[in-house]
């Protein structure tokens, strides 16, 4: 596969390390009263779609960016690649 890195252009997937669902960006608040339930949900209950999937890839043999890659799990078609940091900020994460 080829991942079109937003900063570095098209790179072979072999340069990356795969982590999993981009939903991992949405780490719950560990100090909330229902933290245990929400962390169990966060850690263990994830969607496993046949089709469009947003996932995290790390450019380990490159610039060490974490990327959010939208990939179709049936066809491997990649429809968007963004810096995870931009996605995280846009989706409300900060400090």
């Amino acid at each position: 596969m080829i991942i079109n890195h937003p900063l570095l252009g098209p790179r072979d997937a072999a340069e990356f390390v795969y982590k999993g669902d981009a939903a991992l960006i949405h780490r719950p608040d560990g100090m909330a009263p229902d933290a245990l339930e929400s962390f169990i949900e966060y850690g263990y209950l994830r969607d496993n779609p046949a089709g469009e999937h947003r996932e995290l890839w790390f450019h380990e043999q490159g610039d060490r960016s974490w990327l959010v890659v939208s990939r179709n799990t049936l066809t491997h078609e990649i429809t968007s690649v963004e810096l995870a940091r931009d996605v995280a900020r846009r989706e409300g994460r900060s400090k």
Partner: protein
Amino acid sequence: MTQKNRLQGGLIDRGQSYTFRFDGKKMTGHAGDTLASALLANGVRLMGRSFKYHRPRGPLTAGSEEPNAIVELREGARQEPNTRATTAELFDGLVAKSQNRWPSLAFDALSVNDRLSSFFAAGFYYKTFMWPAAFWEKLYEPMIRRAAGLGSLSLQNDPDSYDKGFLHCDLLITGAGPSGLAAALTAGESGLQVILADEDFVIGGRLNAETFSLGDSLGSDWAAQTVARLRSMPNVRVMPRTTVLGAFDHGIYGAVERVSDHLAVPEADKPRQILWRIYSKRSLLTAGALERPIAFENNDRPGIMLASAMRAYANRWAATPAQRVAIFTNNDDGHRTAADLHAKGVKIAAVIDTRPGQPISIDYEILHGEIIDTAGRLGLRRITVRLASGETREIECGALGVSGGWNPNVSLTCHQRSRPAWDENIAAFIPGGDLPSGMTVAGAARGVFSTHGALTDGAEAAARIAADLGQTATKPELPKAEDAPIQITPFWHVKDAKRAWVDQQNDVTAKDVKLAHQENFVSVEHLKRYTTLGMATDQGKTSNMAGLAIMAEIAGKSIPEVGTTMYRPPYTPAAMGVLAGRSRGKDFRPVRKTPSHVWAEEQGAVFVEVGNWLRAQWFPRKGETTWRESVDREVLQTRKSVGICDVTTLGKIDVQGTDAAAFLNRIYCNGFAKLAVGRTRYGLMLREDGIAMDDGTAARLADDHFVVTTTTANAVSVYRHMEFVRQCLFPDMDVQLISTTEAWAQFSVAGPNARKLLQKVVDAEFDISNEGFPFMACGEITVCGGLRARLFRISFSGELAYEIAVPTRYGDALIRRLMREGQEFDVVAYGTEALGVMRIEKGHAAGNELNGTTTALNLGMGRMVSQAKDSIGTVLSRREGLNDADALKLVGFKPVDPSKKVPAGAHLMTIGDPVNAAHDQGYVTSACYSPNLGHHIAIGYLKSGDQRLGEVVRLISPLTGFDHEVEVVSAHFVDPEGERLRA
């Protein structure tokens, strides 16, 4: 032997004769021959025995789709089993052996299987070897394995080298027949970066096997001229001997170039083969078509081959399998073979056409009928024909060309799960929808079979691709060529045959297909697996179609209703060596050497692999005969005076920014916000699921600057995790990370004289006295008169100890200097073994304890997990299951009988309890001989271990028969109060 079946003409170089041996027999061929063509020219039709029934077989094809003529090529370490004689290029001195026969090809003892064939039908293994179960491993499997299988391995190391390479292009063209060549010309002249790959050693595909002309020249001449033109274009790379093995995601293709397989030995410094990874913007598949056989009684005798192969042998290689041949066909193409061989002076015994009303030839007899049997044990002697009139005729012939029509070569179109579609007009499957991204198919590969059609289809496809990529397409002038329409009446098999072979490599008959259907294997995928049809090394290139057709017929369905199986990479078998490339032996992965490596080698150190690193394991001295002697000395001398160990391999991560402390507070389960500048703290990292991930230290060099250490094994994964937390979870934190593992050479200096030794190298303005630089202090200093360095007062050994770091390039100089300055203290270098002994004596956890299943609670650090902050893993470490009342706790063990060893990995059982998993009390993680205590010691996890100090438990290893009693003790065997490290 003379070349009694050598004809006139052909593309071989008669000026160059090669001597070769087949099964020990010496023969002669020419440059341009394949092993199969040279054997046929020498009158050899029998080339191998079949897989299951050991039936005598000769070549069915003249190409890579060959199921039968599979041989062992070369000798000694270069011996290569299962090589197709039909593609093996002849070279002088080539040695080949037939396979799957004993004692000889002509007389094979296991051909008795053939007589017993009624017992060996489809599903035989599943039905027969079911019972009793215990027999499978001991009797059935070894027996089957001995009987089956084809060639044998040399069991020697491969002496050749293999390379991997990367290519980029606008257009990859796979197959260089008429459509591929026309496409390459068009794309090349349009300015595209083109790669033209073909598996053959002569470019041109079928053009080299036919006699018809293109414009004013012979097809093969036109191919040669076109290749010369293409080679003169700087933007076109022509790659003969290169098989495109697979179509992968996003326009990536894998290809193997056989650089040296046509030579006895590769040229100096050249690889045998290269595995190319080709990145293409577009690809064009022009892989042509493969002829398919017809199944009839005893259709597998040596001498029976595809009509197109017979024609190729005659036209390209000037070889015929016999001087008198017959043809069996259901289409016009078979007649071409008869005409071409007749023109070469081969006697045509008859052409048998399944279709009525074929025109009469003045040169040979044309019959309307079908072949119902053949004769000739080791080679064809006679065929029996049933004429349409019902009359039966026997015809003497030494070879038979069979043509059942042509299948577009769609293999590569299937590699991304596209299913071929049925085309009624040509009675064959053509490429379906959803092709691999960027792929177009042209010419015979999509069912455009005439030469004229292939040329124009290839050129037009390339022009469209050029336009698509923004280039103005220049259409080259193409020569006039034959444009015969396709005249075919599907005919798959002669009915009522007892043994009509469909898949010759896996010995599957038409009857096996019927049996599978009878037993309700009605899906085409089940048919394949039950009968093994199409599952041999040729992937059923010549057999799948007939199998499907027969199945459709039995089921009373149409072929498209039955469907088809798909092809997978690799297109043809690839050597494991080329997939490995240079990554073998010591080059399997890179070796990382520590800054003191050269010095350690000079000391005669024994090294151990730790991940990619080579670390000194111990430093043997003269007179020491066992590793224990060296290790005991290193431990005792370090604890008595001072020892030095290279600890560069530990991961070092530089953390900087105004939020550095807040960031580490998230990363570590214990607190870091209040750590003072100039101080170091032990930190434990948890995974988000609450399990311990890694441990190390974080030293605060400035308000906004920390240096984090990780274990050697986790240096990469911890860094990755920290970047995840930084970029994905807390993107607005002002913090930057960089791995500096390679930037600093770091040595542990441990022992009562550690400070005295360091004071000799640390520059005088830096106070490293116990008051000025206490336990857990850290700082940036200079050594040896101005060299920048970092000093950390941390201790893994439990002694008064420091870790000193200098820029990596000074590491060698520093170890030499420290060892020289340390002579007055009898300083020792110690390796990873002594390091391990001292940390077990001190009860420090390492990789064995942080093994991916243990928590802070298990490690005895439960209270370290701060509940006042939200760090990674804190919440899930509170899970019920991780907090059982009798949770495992890290404790120490000593043998009740001090002479006994304590093996790591052994399990703990309460005395009196039954020995089983249900009563398991824990296990030993690390063990060693303690030279300070004079007996073996261990640490490990025991249920409620912290409350069982003094109890005697059983330590059991059923695997090794170990069963002894050990006493539960504190894990801190040496200096439990920590007085030494604060001294």
